């Protein structure tokens, strides 16, 4: 299991458990995300609080998940990115594709 999941009112908080978001767990992450999205939720907030590094394979799975989510009217937000991870997402402009927040509370604040 890659994600620790908590759902309240169709909003899922999904925390990535491994410290390395990489080739090793990218496929499992994608499958877990697709299962969550297909379950009828409206928002998945993915926390990177444990993640020390991310690679291209995991980033690809993240994009696949968003491409699966958008036609189903499901949003994916990213929260609690460590500076090194956030800087990589910014380098490849994924900060324009995903909504990124400092933490869960800030992300949840957009819902009110």
């Amino acid at each position: 299991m890659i994600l620790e999941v908590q759902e309240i009112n169709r909003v899922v908080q999904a925390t990535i458990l491994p410290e390395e978001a990489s080739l090793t767990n990218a496929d499992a992450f994608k499958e877990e995300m697709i299962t969550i999205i297909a379950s009828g939720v409206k928002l998945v907030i993915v926390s990177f609080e444990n993640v020390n590094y991310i690679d291209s394979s995991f980033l690809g799975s993240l994009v696949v998940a968003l491409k699966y989510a958008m036609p189903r009217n499901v949003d994916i937000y990213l929260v609690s990115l460590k500076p090194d991870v956030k800087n990589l997402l910014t380098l490849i402009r994924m900060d324009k594709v995903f909504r990124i927040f400092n933490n869960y509370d800030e992300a949840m604040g957009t819902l009110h």
Partner: protein
Amino acid sequence: MSEDLNLIEIIFGNNRHEIPGTLNLCLDHILEGAGGNPVDEATLSRVKWVIIELLTNAVKHSGERETVLKIRIDAAGIVLIKEDYGRPLVLVGQDSDKKIIWPLEKIVRPVDFPIYHNGMDSLCVRTDEAGRAIFFIEQLAEMEMPALLSDTSEHFGLLIMTKASDEFSYEFEAATGLNRFVCTFKLTSR
């Protein structure tokens, strides 16, 4: 692993589980090798991202049991070199109308075309007279979601290596079957 004054050579077993340990080994040697000319945090992050992608590329694409990672450090910069005798590079164009495989036929050289893009960054390749591929980014017009997502590739490896380094290239030695990726980081450029 072997070392001289400026060159570190690490054998990587093309096993995904070895990536974190090999990454740390590389970073330790870079910090040690930099000595009195310390590498700033931003550059070290860029080097780290590229090492991860070089090792991931080896696991996914080489088809060989071993890859040699060489790291050269001097006052001018850091050079990462990945060498193996596995499958040569294959590049398919953005619109799938072009495909090149090394060794290049003379009639194919030089080539210059986009490989993929993620909205605003178009990853392109250009070959020189020797058949060496040089990767570079062309900036495209700003795009907004959701069109941006539709236009975003799910492949990021070559893009990360191109954007994170100051120069990123690939060459193939036809006589020996050696594949060589080279990433250069100028220590005074940013």
